[in-house]
């Protein structure tokens, strides 16, 4: 792999850009691999990358039914934060956030990580208490957050309306090291690094069956033929239930549509991410100037990547009260992605009832921010066959034991 650098740009400028190579290869599938990962989104590619980097396992195929990063990796609102209440969540999301800080250097690929700060507005008395508690918990966990006053909120985000009649801003949980990153670049950067390690990224290869013998996984049937493997990792946001059915077990998950939208581009007016969980809306401004807006998920099972219009309406209606400046903006695009919602709204990184088959899913509405941490923990699980400290609390067994990671109470909807 030729490294990207300022020198490389100068070199290529002198020879009319004829020397750039493909970022990743498009190989034909081999008959067998040590590890097959289903799903070449952020989480799947990160799993592959850390399998190679941390454990030296490079005989890996990443199988993708569509195109690389074309699912939720390309559909989220790119927010990165780790201000969680519960210790297991804070640990894995903070691991992810810290890996994002060095990701561009690590991958030699500019993921445009922008630690611009994330604030979660407290708009009710309950939220004030809840976020103060979270700030104290974060102090113990070593996650830098603080509870800030309305005046400080206004200072950080001047376009905000503090004294709205229905949703006054009473304070906020502020994580200055949170922010955003370029979501596609995360997938592309991991893919380039994986391809460089000799891993096979097989796009437009849909898995239709999981092959097994004697309770152990032996491979997968794909649209390009059978592929054998010693270990199988299912990392398919939104479609975990479909793959689990192929593998012969059920998951504590349901799939629903989550929507986002962007406005026409305007001049820079907001250099932080603001989340308002009471009204189910969050907003940031992209480098292009578009206001990026996310809302709540639909309540019913859905695989169509289309959501209900009234959810968009509710989100925008509420955000207009908090940000009167957006009331005349035209919205350019709106789209949906399918998220796996687990019983306790926390993810699953776990062994499964099928031997040597592992699952990483159920990230619900919080998948993008966790990509590197999820990949790190999943790679350890796949390589060793047992979860490490990061993944252990997120096992499937917690639903039988009643040992939930009950984050939804703390984080509201935008979790």
């Amino acid at each position, binding site marked *: 792999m030729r490294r990207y650098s300022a020198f490389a740009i100068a070199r290529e400028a002198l020879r009319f850009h004829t020397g750039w190579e493909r970022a990743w290869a498009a190989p034909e599938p081999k008959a067998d691999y040590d590890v097959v990962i289903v799903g070449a989104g952020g989480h799947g590619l990160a799993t592959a990358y850390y399998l190679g980097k941390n454990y030296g396992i490079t005989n890996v195929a990443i199988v993708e039914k569509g195109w690389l990063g074309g699912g939720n990796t390309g559909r989220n609102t790119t927010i990165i934060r780790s201000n969680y209440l519960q210790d297991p969540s804070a640990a894995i999301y903070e691991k992810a956030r810290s890996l994002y800080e060095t990701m561009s250097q690590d991958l030699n690929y500019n993921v445009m990580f922008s630690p611009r700060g994330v604030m979660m507005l407290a708009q009710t008395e309950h939220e004030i208490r809840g976020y103060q508690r979270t700030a104290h918990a974060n102090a113990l966990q070593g996650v830098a957050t603080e509870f800030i006053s309305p005046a400080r909120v206004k200072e950080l985000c001047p376009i905000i309306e503090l004294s709205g009649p229905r949703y006054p801003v009473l304070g906020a949980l502020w994580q200055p090291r949170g922010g955003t990153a370029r979501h596609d670049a995360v997938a592309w950067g991991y893919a380039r690094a994986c391809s460089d390690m000799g891993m096979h990224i097989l796009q437009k290869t849909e898995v239709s069956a999981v092959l097994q013998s004697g309770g152990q996984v032996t491979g997968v049937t794909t649209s390009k033929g059978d592929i054998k493997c010693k270990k199988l990792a299912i990392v398919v946001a939104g*479609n975990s*239930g*479909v793959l689990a*059915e192929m593998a012969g077990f*059920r*998951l*504590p*998950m*349901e*799939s629903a549509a989550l929507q986002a939208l962007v406005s026409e581009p305007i001049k820079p007016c907001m250099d932080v991410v603001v989340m308002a969980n009471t009204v189910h809306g969050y907003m940031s401004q992209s480098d292009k100037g578009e206001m990026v807006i996310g809302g709540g998920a*639909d*309540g*019913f*099972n*859905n*695989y*169509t990547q*289309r959501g*209900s*219009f*009234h959810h968009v309406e509710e989100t925008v209606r509420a955000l207009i009260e908090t940000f009167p400046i957006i009331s005349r903006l035209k919205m350019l695009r709106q789209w949906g992605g399918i998220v796996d919602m*687990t*019983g306790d709204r926390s993810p699953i990184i776990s062994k499964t009832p099928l031997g040597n088959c592992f699952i990483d899913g159920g990230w619900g509405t919080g998948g993008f921010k966790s990509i590197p941490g999820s990949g790190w923990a999943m790679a350890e699980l796949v390589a060793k066959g047992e979860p490490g400290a990061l993944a252990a609390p997120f096992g499937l067994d917690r*639903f*039988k034991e009643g040992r939930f990671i009950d984050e939804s109470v703390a984080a509201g909807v935008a979790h």
Partner: protein
Amino acid sequence: MLLLTCPNCGIKADETELHPGGEAHITRHGAGASDSDFEGYLFHRKNPKGVHFERWRHAMGCGKWFHAARATDTLEVFGTYSAQVFEPPNDLIEKIKLKRPDWEGF
């Protein structure tokens, strides 16, 4: 936007009038059940990409619960029926089979 006909009051209601209630016809294991039965009842869901039987409540209308059969991959609604049954009516199952010959059945 989803349109479901409430079998209780006969009104064709749009989604903003309705509240989704999740998968229908789940066996409700209670006291004395095994851990795995109870876990399955509480958490495990079919979550199919295809035909799904589910519960809805006509929250902003008559307030009553009912059942619906819907496709999660196309949002097509096959029909709605009473909440007071343990499985979908046969005519509805036949109707779905006609439309989706490769559906594995209820």
